[in-house]
Each structure stands twice: as structure tokens, then as C-alpha cells.
């Protein structure tokens, strides 16, 4: 048994697995440049950049994008606050019901989105809440909390609890400790958690369909367009842009957590 060289079979299986994961996405990228606009003809009869200009001039795309950005931003902020509070409480002390809290936080992603979606919708209809940006945010923030929570808890676990004590020992009260020790130490974890939460919210469609009413976030716009296309390549351009835009926070998260033992983006 050789510890530093992988068996050939394993190499092939891993490479095949990664290929399987990547080829289909690249396909959509190719279609964003096709000259053919009605159907998906493979291989594309020709390539053009005109669809980027067309997309730029479509107001409905901008509206959907604006809504998505707004929802993702607000949800991220809420998730950051709730997630880090929860992580602080859970990692600070062992208290009765700790496990229950962790379970409560994990539940919104452990249960299928369709459940979360229809549950929120039932609640809205019972409480007579009309659909608005806020109804979308309610749903998104709920399942984004866990992303921030996971990242923050991992960081808290790694930062020794004695740092807080050391700070108080050196004369800093709770708030000074928060400002000078706790925040600087969990900052990158929070940034990473926030980025991942943003990316998750930005791409969410399953819960959103239930909580959006007639509003269109970008993924919902895409779903609509993919089914009932006006200009198919426009959809592909948007799809490509969405992939690239979600990738940015992920890359950022990667660079921020590089070299640490927690991998960013776990438990989407």
C-alpha cells in the first residue's frame, strides 16, 4: 500500500465523476452564443455575441435581477445576524436544549424546500399576509441562517474559548471583547457565510415559487422563460451570467477560507 500515490482505478473514477459534474454546465455556455434562436440545435449552426446586447436591453431581466439582488441582500443580512447569534450561544455554553437549537437551525434545509414553501404559503394565507418582497425574504432568510450558522460555529469551535477569557483578563469588558477579539476572529467566517447565503438565495427557486406570488426573481424568470421562451438565447445568456455571478462569492469564500480546516460552502 502506497500512501502518496492513488490507485489508477480511483483516479479514473474521480476524474469521470468530475467530468460528469462539469460538462453539462459548459453546454449552456455554448448555447449563449448560438445564432439560432427558436430551438436548441446541436451543434449550434453559428456563433454570435448579439444576444448579450439583446439581453442588456430587456427591462424584464433587469427587474428580475433587481428583485433577486434585493431579496438576497436582505436575507443575507438577516441570516448573518440570526446565524451568528445562534452560533455564539451554542458554542459558548452547554445548556439544556442545545441539541434542539441545532436541529431547529438545520431543519429548514433538511426538510425538502417544497415543504418549507408550502408551509410558509399556508401561514401567509392563514395570517392574511399579501405577497411582497418580504414574504420572499422570510423564506430565504430562514434557510440561509443555517449557512451562516455552520460557518460561524466551525470558526467558534476553532477559536479557543480562552481568547475571550484572555481578553477579559486583560481588562476588556464584554463589548470591548466583542469588538476587539470576537468580531475580528470570526469576521472571515461571517463574510464567507454571508457570501454563501447570498449565492444560495440568489439561485433559490423551489421555495420562492410559493412565497413570491406574482413577483419574479431571476430564477423564476428563468424558469418561466425556459418553459415559454421568447428569445431562447437570451435565457441562456442570463443563465450563464447567473452561473458566473454565483461563482464570484463562492470563489471569494474559497480564497478567504483557503488553508483553514473548514471548507466553505458545506451544507448548502
Amino acid at each position: 500500500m502506497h500512501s502518496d500515490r492513488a490507485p489508477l482505478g480511483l483516479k479514473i473514477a474521480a476524474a469521470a465523476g468530475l467530468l460528469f459534474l462539469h460538462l453539462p454546465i459548459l453546454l449552456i455556455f455554448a448555447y449563449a452564443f448560438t445564432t439560432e434562436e427558436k430551438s436548441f440545435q446541436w451543434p449550434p449552426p453559428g456563433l454570435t455575441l448579439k444576444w448579450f446586447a439583446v439581453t442588456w436591453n430587456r427591462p424584464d431581466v433587469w427587474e428580475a435581477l433587481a428583485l433577486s439582488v434585493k431579496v438576497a441582500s436582505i436575507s443575507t443580512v438577516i441570516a448573518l445576524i440570526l446565524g451568528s447569534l445562534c452560533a455564539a450561544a451554542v458554542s459558548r455554553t452547554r445548556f439544556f436544549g442545545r441539541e434542539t437549537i441545532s436541529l431547529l437551525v438545520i431543519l429548514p434545509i433538511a426538510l425538502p424546500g417544497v415543504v418549507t414553501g408550502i408551509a410558509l404559503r399556508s401561514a401567509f394565507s392563514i395570517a392574511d399576509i399579501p405577497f411582497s418582497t418580504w414574504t420572499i425574504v422570510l423564506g430565504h432568510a430562514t434557510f440561509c441562517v443555517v449557512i451562516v450558522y455552520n460557518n460561524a460555529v466551525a470558526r467558534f469551535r476553532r477559536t479557543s474559548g480562552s481568547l475571550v477569557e484572555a481578553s477579559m483578563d486583560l481588562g476588556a469588558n464584554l463589548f470591548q471583547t466583542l469588538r476587539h477579539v470576537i468580531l475580528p476572529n470570526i469576521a472571515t467566517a461571517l463574510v464567507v457565510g454571508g457570501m454563501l447565503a447570498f449565492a444560495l438565495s440568489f439561485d433559490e427557486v423551489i421555495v420562492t415559487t410559493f412565497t413570491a406570488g406574482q413577483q419574479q426573481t431571476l430564477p423564476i424568470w428563468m424558469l418561466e422563460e425556459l418553459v415559454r421562451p421568447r428569445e431562447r438565447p437570451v435565457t441562456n445568456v442570463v443563465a450563464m451570467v447567473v452561473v458566473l455571478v454565483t461563482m464570484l462569492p463562492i470563489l471569494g469564500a474559497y480564497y478567504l477560507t483557503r488553508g483553514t480546516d473548514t471548507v466553505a460552502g458545506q451544507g448548502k
Partner: protein
Amino acid sequence: MSVVSTTDLPRRDGVTMRLSDTLWRRPTLLLVLLLLPPVLWLGIIYLGSLFALLLQSFFSIDHFSGLINYEFTLRTYAELFTPANFDIIVRTVTMAACTTLASAVIAFPIAYYAARYAKGRWRAVFYLGIMMPLWSSYLVKIYAWKLILAKEGILTWALEGLHLNWLLDAYLSLPVVGGNSLSVSTTGTFIVFVYVWMPFMILPTQAALERVPASMLEASGDLGARPGQTFRHVLFPLALPGIVAGSIFTFSLTLGDYIIPQIIGTSRLFIGQAVYQHQGIAGNIPLAAAFAVVPIVIMGLYLYIARRMGAFDAL
């Protein structure tokens, strides 16, 4: 006139200092303050909604006007167990189980390679290689597959180029898994499910594998086990909590999805579609709610078992 040196006066603490002192003296108060916002949010908004959902499932619908009849009844649950609806549950759970199994099989080598052999630059490549598909747009992925699997899609095009069409045709002529083309077959649905949810299996598996010390494998070899035996008796059991943790996602996500089977599949419903259609299309919210209770119950059981297998630490 008397002169009082300010330093002789007891130091007057500011508000934050006094608050800080109070919180130090009452750690429970601090804990409560920390927990209150998240618990209120999740408790009221999320659990409250689940409760509302549960409540809805005990109502019924007037079948002609489509309006909800707000009276407690178990009729809706009875409807859940009519053969047609029960089929949906069985079909979905079977699909979720198959997806989970296949994901585990495909994810394992990737996770194992990433955990044990990928070093330096390759580590980064693997990391990004796993994260990109995980986070890239869900809809984009599904549509990419529709293009691939359609009868006149890319797969056919590629197989035509290789003169392997007969292979696909032979497969499609099989009962149950086959169909007119892959995009309208159970196999197609299965492939896309695996594709979309499999990345969720890799990370927990990888995390679990990273925690298996190399000495564990060496010890097994040292005691006479061939690589295959080491896998069966040591590596796999030790990675299992991670796989189970990953399976929580693959299973749950498959259980609730309604977009994939609608776009690629045989028109036979899955639970997610049933929920979606009864709610959105048929307006039968009680039945949709009752359907939604099914994954809650299944996932409840699943989480319970997973926790006993120690999968939560691997999340």
C-alpha cells in the same frame, strides 16, 4: 472651598460597562439574549408555518368550487392513501433511495481522492471542481440535461457519431426504465436527480474521510487485509456517518423536488409535484398539505436514524 481630586472618587462606570457587569453576573441572561432572536424567528416563522401546514391538512376542499372547507376532518389523509396517491409516495421514496445510493457511489471516489491524495494545487482544483457544480444555477443544470437527453438531443447526436445508437435504443426498449427517449423516461429523471444532488454528497463524505487517519488503513493492511478488505471493514464503516449526512441532503432534496420530474420524466407524479400541483394548479391546499406532511414524517425518521449513526457530527 475644598479641592477634591478626581482620582479619589470611585470610578463611574459607563452604560456599557454596567451592562457588561450585569451580563457577567447573569450568564443566563446573556444566553437568553443571544438565543432570543434566532429562536423567535425560527420558532415563529418556520415552526409556526409548519404548524399552519399541519393544520391545513386537517381541512378538506369542496370539490366543485375548489374552496376550502374549514372543518376538522381526516378525509384528506384518507385520500392520501388511495392507490393513485400512495403510488406517488412509493415512487418518490424509491427514486430518492436510488438517487442517494447512486450519489454515494459516484461521490465516494471523488471525495476519497480529494481527501487523501489531492495535495497543493490539486486540492484547490478539486475543491473548486466540487463547489462549482454545487453552487451553479439549479435551473441551468436541469435545462442542460434536457438538451442532452432529448430524442434529438446531444446524446443522440454523439452516439450517432459513434454509431452506437442501437445501444441506446436497446436500453430504451426496456420496461420501466426505458421510454421513447431518455428525457421522457424514468432513467432520465434519475440521471438528472443524481446530477443535481450528488455534489451534496461529496463534501460530507470527504469530511468524514479526512477524519479517518491514514494509520487506520495502514493498521488494517498491517493486520493482513488486502485493499478491498480494508475498504469493506475499515474505510467504508468509518466514512458511513459522512455518507449518511450527505444522504440527508440527497434524500430530502429528491423527496421534495417538483421541477426536475416535470421537465424530464414520464408525467408520473412525484411528491413534490403533487404538492405543487394540488396547491398551485388544483388549489387543493389541504391535500397538498397532507402530501407535504409525508416528507416531514419520512425525514423525521431519517434524521432520527442519522443522528443515532452519528451523522450530525459529520454535517
